[in-house]
């Protein structure tokens, strides 16, 4: 079943009179349950692609549809609702609220879906336990390691039961050991049926996915299915 479809999509920015084609005539479809990695050099349009996937942006040309619904026809409000209900974001810099507990950080999206405070905390706790941070619920981001912070961010992306997780270089700020743990978590989530689109510029991170989109100058240079490398359970890491 098609989750996302890009149909001759372009995204242009005008910078000082001249036009920059951040995305140039891209046609791609992503099915529900896929684990797609997006790879390419800096400035090749990866983030622009992600923003369009995540309804943070609308195309200059072409059509982006999510579950068959054209994004272009939606207003700011509807797009916000769509992001809230269906999409989880994970960022390179985690983007956690400082001086706010892990639990409250995870519960943040639920505020905007109108869930009551009590229910929010129960739900957030459940997701924190799912990423293995149940005992850290009351800690502030500054008291957590980078890997733990990214797990909190992933928990936040998960809390609304999204169909799609968009991760823009989620391991960019982490060491390789921690990166592996995070990738393992993503694979686990993908195994539970959540679609994942992951931007990276490291080939061995991209290897965690089952499909690789290679971007160059705003175009998809190649789109290939790959053999998925299984990342190890964190507990087994030491023996590997």
């Amino acid at each position: 079943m098609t989750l996302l479809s890009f149909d001759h999509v372009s995204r242009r920015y005008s910078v000082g009179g001249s036009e920059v084609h951040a995305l140039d005539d891209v046609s791609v479809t992503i099915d529900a349950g896929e684990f797609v990695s997006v790879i390419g050099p800096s400035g090749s349009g990866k983030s622009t692609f992600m923003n369009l996937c995540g309804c943070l942006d609308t195309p200059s040309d072409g059509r982006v549809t999510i579950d068959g619904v054209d994004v272009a026809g939606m207003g700011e409000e509807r797009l916000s609702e769509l992001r809230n209900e269906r999409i989880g974001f994970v960022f390179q810099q985690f983007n956690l609220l400082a001086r706010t507990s892990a639990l409250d950080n995870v519960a943040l999206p639920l505020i905007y879906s109108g869930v009551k405070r009590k229910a929010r905390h129960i739900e957030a706790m459940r997701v924190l336990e799912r990423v293995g941070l149940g005992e850290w619920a009351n800690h502030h981001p500054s008291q957590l390691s980078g890997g733990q912070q990214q797990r909190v961010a992933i928990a936040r992306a998960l809390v609304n039961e999204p169909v799609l997780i968009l991760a823009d270089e989620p391991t960019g700020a982490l060491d390789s050991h921690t990166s592996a743990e995070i990738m393992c978590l993503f694979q686990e989530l993908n195994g539970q049926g959540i679609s994942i689109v992951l931007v990276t510029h490291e080939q061995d991170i991209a290897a965690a996915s089952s499909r690789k989109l290679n971007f160059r100058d705003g175009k998809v240079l190649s789109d290939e299915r790959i053999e998925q490398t299984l990342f190890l359970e964190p507990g087994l890491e030491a023996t590997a």
Partner: protein
Amino acid sequence: MSVLESVLVALTALRTNLLRSMLTMLGIIIGVAAVITMVAMGTGAQKEVDAQIAALGTNLFMIMPGSFRDHGARMASGSRLKLTEDDAHAIKREVAGVVASAPTSRGAVQIVSGNMNWSTTVQGIDNDYLLARNWEIVEGRVFEAREIRSGTRAALVGATVAEELFGEASIVGQSVRINNVPFQIVGRLGPKGQSMMGYDQDDLVMVPLEAARGRLLGASRAVAKAVSVIMVSVEQASMMDEVEEQITGLLRQRHRLRADQENTFSIRNMSEMVATRAEASRVFNMLLAAVASVSLVVGGIGIMNIMLVSVTERTREIGLRRAVGAKPRDILTQFLIEAITLCTIGGAVGVLLSVVIIMVTSNLTGWPVELPFQVIVLAVLFSAAIGVSFGYYPARKAARQDPIEALRYE
């Protein structure tokens, strides 16, 4: 997202930056405290002026011998300048609209009761004086016409004197010696408080004019029945000008002044004087409140400044909130409510502070203060309104941020 939810989010944000929040609030706190303190003191002063007006009597003229321009010089220069009891009676008889026309003289005396001794003022009056001044008797009675005519040694005692000599005890029927002349007390006067000039109006005894003149004041032999002041009260405020004109005419005629001669008396419209004073104090109060309001506006600008800083600082937070589903109006409400919360808490603290300031100053200085409840409510509402008006621009700025740009902001 409910309003309560927004308030909670706002409170959390304010708490994470506690010191800054408090410093920002300080502007509003000081502004609100200043406005309320000024209004309270102004209202107190106003109340006192109003009480003075009420105590003075209504629509009152004070007629004195001589002219105001060269008071001292003319006073000594001859019998012609004296006002008499008969002048007072003529005014009452011949000028329409005059309710009371009271001849009166006063002087300093010593009053003794038993072993108690008090220096005070004696005022010779007839009953018109009490009428003109709206002066009540709280115990006993006013003078009888017979006592006024014959100058009986009867006395009405002012509240202060009664207090000094007798305390709370009943005084009617008691004997006192005024300058060694025995008088019998027939009544106790109700309290009038301080006059506009600041002296205690209750520190006096009143006796029939005739008794004062004959026995206490050492009457001038030059003019029989001379009095120092005539108090005239008029039926309606609208008649004051007309009555003043008629009195002038009447007195000029009675004093046989030619057209080219100046008045030998002067008429002062007391009600107008206090009204002018009341107006002046009202204007002054408004001015003070206006100046204080400026500090409130400055506080508002402080709020706006800090909210703008906060919006810039939290650009990434705004981007993140938008990414996880906040609508532009959620962001607008969040920052607006933050500003309103800051201002309202500031306003409430300002109210408390002003109450403390008012209590301390009125205790230390004895200034009259009056804090109307509506002013408190108004001040808090006003500071919330400042929150809205000065918080709106930063909040709108936050709501209009592009989420992608905001997320990329370093």
